[in-house]
């Protein structure tokens, strides 16, 4: 199939095959970063080319694509990626989590539980969890190979020593399937528990460093912690000002020049569904 002068989903078939092989290997070794040969994409790397390449490699004509950025479907980044695939693959798009077969995301996991058969594609800026303390690639590879992950706790130690608690709140390190240490990309740690034993397939694409890694369905994903400082997610005193949700990740938004503010769901699809249900209830 040819869509608007491009090959289906923009990438040539050979590149897609190469990416699929990489993805299969990634699925076979949960949490392990598999390198791949980069293919130039018509967007700068900051736009999430790693995620786009993964999506391009797995998408088919019958797929329904949802793209979110910070939880919202209507940001510039999300809109342009959705348009890109609508144009180059002619696929249907949606904002509804439950209707999507593929969700490409930056910074969030949807609040609605994912189900079997869905694929969540993460855009990853920095894939290597050990990088912050170990700049040498040869050494980080060896550390992964030998499961030498002690320095990950050094980082949490520093957090507690400095802040009195584990202050890391995004891109919070996890261990996958009791084996590989993994960066979940800059999602809030609020979303970390959703990765654990999720029925959906989770794929991670890092464009700049040309790595793909994966968490297959129903795989254990454990957030690091200390016995006396257990892992905790963010929580809020208030509920969403728009839909009343008390269980979702909230963004603080400024509503006036006087600095008035309110807290609303970062997941716009979740929030809208709840608002619609509320007004329906009110009407009945």
């Amino acid at each position: 199939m040819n869509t608007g002068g491009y090959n289906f989903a923009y990438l040539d078939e050979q590149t897609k095959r190469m990416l699929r092989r990489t993805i299969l290997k990634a699925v076979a070794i949960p949490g392990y970063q598999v390198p791949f040969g980069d293919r130039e994409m018509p967007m700068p790397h900051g736009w999430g080319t790693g995620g786009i390449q993964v999506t391009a490699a797995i998408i088919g004509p019958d797929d329904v694509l949802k793209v979110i950025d910070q939880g919202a479907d209507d940001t510039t980044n999300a809109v342009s990626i959705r348009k890109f695939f609508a144009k180059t693959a002619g696929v249907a798009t949606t904002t509804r989590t439950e209707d999507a077969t593929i969700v490409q995301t930056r910074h969030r996991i949807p609040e609605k539980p994912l189900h079997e058969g869905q694929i969540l594609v993460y855009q990853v800026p920095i894939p290597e969890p050990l990088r912050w303390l170990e700049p040498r690639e040869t050494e980080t590879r060896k550390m992964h190979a030998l499961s030498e992950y002690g320095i990950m706790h050094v980082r949490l130690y520093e957090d507690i020593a400095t802040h009195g608690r584990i202050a890391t709140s995004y891109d919070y390190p996890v261990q996958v399937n009791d084996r590989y240490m993994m960066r979940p990309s800059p999602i809030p740690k609020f979303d970390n528990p959703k990765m654990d034993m999720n029925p959906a397939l989770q794929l991670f694409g890092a464009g700049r460093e040309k790595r793909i890694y994966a968490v297959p369905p129903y795989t254990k994903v454990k957030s690091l912690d200390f016995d006396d400082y257990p892992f905790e997610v963010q929580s809020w005193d208030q509920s969403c000002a728009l839909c009343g949700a008390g269980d979702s990740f909230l963004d603080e938004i400024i509503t006036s020049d006087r600095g008035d503010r309110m807290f609303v769901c970062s997941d716009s699809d979740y929030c809208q569904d709840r608002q619609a249900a509320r007004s329906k209830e009110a009407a009945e």
Partner: protein
Amino acid sequence: MSAVDQPLLRVESLTRYFGARAACRDVSFDLWPGEVMGVVGESGSGKTTLLNCLSARLRPDAGRVLYQTRHEGVVDIYDLREAERRLLMRTDWGLVHQNPRDGLRMGVSAGANIGERLMAVGARHYGEIRDAASAWLGRVEIDLSRIDDRPRAFSGGMQQRLQIARNLVTAPRIVFMDEPTGGLDVSVQARLLDLLRELVRELHLSVVIVTHDLAVVRLLAHRLLVMRQGEVVEAGLTDQVLDDPQHPYTQLLVSSVLQA
């Protein structure tokens, strides 16, 4: 034969080339529990090469390094799988570098520097790790108020003491030291040497200490190896070697120190 009758480390005919040149040739010795072995010789004589071979960081071209493990008998450290070797390096052995930047993580606090080896072997209780770090800071005479400071802000002497604490926290049996007092003021050196002497005695540590400074080995080492152009030219008890040197090179070394 029980472990006490055996050396902790047995070094057999160790040889390492760089190109055609032997940086260290046919070196053999035993290191016993609680013993401090000094290795002296001028710059370029092969001391660091020997230490690197002993501490599992540089594979020799010939010869063996046999280590008496705690539970598994004697092993040739270069026959071990890499994972086993690296585990020993984090647990049973310590390494104090001449340059603290090579032996410390300058980007994290003193407490984290000490706690790292504990976390690397599975410690997962913050409070206990912190207590161990505090205790070790005290033992190496660094004020507890510095526990959350980065070593960058420390003096050279403090950095060396922090390196020592960072190594000793997992109760290693052997510590390898490469010029640990190099670059320090004389008074700072003296304090460090006193501290090392106490720790060696209290912890019954075995140490291989490499230095070009005979005053250091005079104070610390039980026995000496004198190296010249990669070979050991004289070996023996420290006092004997220094007070009654037999080899002309040792005589020269001792007399040049006396003149200095």
